[in-house]
């Protein structure tokens, strides 16, 4: 597979690119995607994600700036000369052609289809027309068409939005493997933080035509730059807190953060550069639900660097293999945590029952 599909690829450089539709226009965008890496751009509807892909592909003119693939400038090239594979949000298959003819147009005319047909399990459907296939099969054909002939750059627009939720994990897994083996430089846009997290080597957060943050996937998910980005990244716990007091006698100095004059936690980690907090200042503390550990009521911190917050259970529901617990902290703030099924059984909590939420200090992130 690797030998047949992988080819030396070049990195994508976008410098000051301004794209738009009608009166709407983006902010200038600067991007670097190293060769063979996948950039997942995350954003809500209307963020300008699809318009950006259309501009990279040459369907919309760049209003300013430049696009380079390696040393080759793409900015004004027509789409057919860009060497790009594009998987559209709906599959956009040619409805009057069989799967094989769909794959054979243009770049695919003389390409070796065998590796793609095997990986995407399409060999059986070569003589079928798109209307004879299920949604998942059509998306696989669209993916094969985008990858055929080893394009220099791969663009994926919400690759899973048109298929059933049950079929998504399998296709996501297939796509992740394909991207790894094909080693194609890829830009993927999605509104689903899970897709971005699982498929992106890099993650960018796009909002109203502005790139809010871009970096290595784990870094962006662990340390969102601001509240807007944190919301787009699907952070479960965003607690608006106020500085109640700064305890300088303690080592290291602690800042007591609370809600409605009720202390919630003391902050002992280093503050971001150039930030000095005074009593009365407002901050947001974020922590992902998977970093919050539900413990029996009145549990004490198991180790240094652990926080134990008293809470009560308000709701619980099964999400895939895990239980998502909705809790209310003593100060009235809402908090969410995950529990393994065994852990959930062991806790044996009823609604309204008290529990303790354990957090490691290094998993907390302060947004000033």
């Amino acid at each position, binding site marked *: 597979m690797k030998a047949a599909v992988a080819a030396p690829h070049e990195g994508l450089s976008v410098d000051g690119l301004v794209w738009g539709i009608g009166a709407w226009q983006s902010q200038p965008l600067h991007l670097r995607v190293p060769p063979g890496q996948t950039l997942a751009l995350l954003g809500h509807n209307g963020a300008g994600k699809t318009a950006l892909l259309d501009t990279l592909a*040459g369907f919309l003119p760049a209003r300013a700036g430049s696009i380079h693939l390696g040393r080759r400038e793409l900015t004004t090239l*027509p789409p057919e000369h860009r060497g790009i594979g*594009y998987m*559209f949000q709906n599959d*956009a298959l*040619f409805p009057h052609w069989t799967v094989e003819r769909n794959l054979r*147009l243009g*770049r*695919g005319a003389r390409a070796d289809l065998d590796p793609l047909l095997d990986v995407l399990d399409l060999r059986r459907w070569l003589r079928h*027309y798109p209307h004879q296939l299920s949604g998942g099969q059509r998306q696989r054909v669209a993916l094969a068409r985008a990858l055929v002939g080893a394009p220099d750059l791969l663009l994926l627009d919400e690759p899973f939005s048109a298929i059933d939720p049950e079929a998504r994990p399998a296709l996501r897994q297939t796509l992740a493997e394909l991207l790894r083996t094909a080693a194609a430089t890829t830009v993927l846009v999605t509104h689903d933080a899970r897709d971005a997290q699982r498929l992106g080597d890099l993650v960018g957060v796009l909002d109203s035509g502005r790139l809010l943050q871009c970096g290595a996937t784990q870094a962006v998910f662990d340390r969102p730059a601001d509240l807007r980005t944190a919301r787009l990244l699907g952070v479960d716990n965003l607690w608006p807190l106020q500085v109640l007091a700064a305890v300088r006698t303690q080592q290291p100095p602690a800042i007591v953060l609370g809600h409605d004059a009720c202390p919630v936690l003391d902050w002992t980690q280093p503050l971001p550069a150039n930030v000095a907090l005074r009593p009365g200042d407002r901050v947001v503390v974020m922590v992902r639900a998977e970093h919050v550990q539900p413990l029996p009521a009145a549990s004490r911190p198991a180790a240094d660097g652990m926080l134990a917050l008293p809470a009560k259970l308000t709701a619980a529901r099964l999400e895939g293999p895990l239980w998502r617990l909705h809790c209310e902290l003593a100060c009235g703030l809402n908090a969410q945590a995950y529990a393994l099924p065994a852990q959930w059984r062991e806790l044996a909590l009823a609604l309204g029952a008290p529990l303790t939420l354990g957090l490691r200090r290094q998993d907390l992130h302060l947004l000033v």
Partner: protein
Amino acid sequence: MRRAARGSPMFWVFWLIGATLLAFIALPLLALLLHPTLRDLQHAALTADVRSAIVLSLAAALTSTALAAVFAVPLAYVLARQRFRGKSAVEALVDLPLTIPHTVAGIALLLVFSRGGWLGAPLARIGLEFWGTFAGIVLAMSYVGLPYAVNAARGGFEAIDLRIERAARIQGAGPWEVFRRITLPLARQGIGTGLTLCFARAIGEFAAVVLLAYYPMTAPIRIYDLFLQSGLRQSVAAAVLFLLVVLGLFWGLRLLTRRRRPLGPQQPAQP
């Protein structure tokens, strides 16, 4: 659910009103078809003037339809795919022949294409004349038929998802190849409907044609002429003969342009 909706009183009322309309369309044609005897029809079919008029009408209508395919399809594609300043003015211009009386259209065509007209005089110098010629008949037919071809073809193009064309471009096909291999086949039904409507409008055109080319006589003019010269009986026989030829032709065209869904292997897809 569907059965319940079909049986509701509202649908019965709508069917009753619709049936009145259907009767209004069908009754005159039925009366026309039942009026002449077989002998009358045979006589009309053997009359050289009637036969040549029908053949002339068919030839002129087919030629104007071919011209529509050449001129209307590109304009329809531009209107379907591009936004530009003055687009609504272009759309209004395309629709203009639908809104003006055809007698007025005939007079207007005369002013431009008769021997002394704006374009008629220079074209006459290269041997292309429209006054009383086959070309004049085609011209008048095209004028009234083209809007149908443009509008239906445009609908056919607009029904194609733009991303299908874009997918072909990004795979490496140039704009001409995309138009030829993707767009035209997918818009076939819309274009076919447009050309059929254009043909229908052209073959039945009387007012615009009679002003530009009374002779040679097309079938509608010949029928009118028979009515004036020989009375209802002769004209009805010619009319029915013309009607049967036209209906037969439309039946054939309809079969040709009917949507044909490509058939693949009859193996159901598994999810």
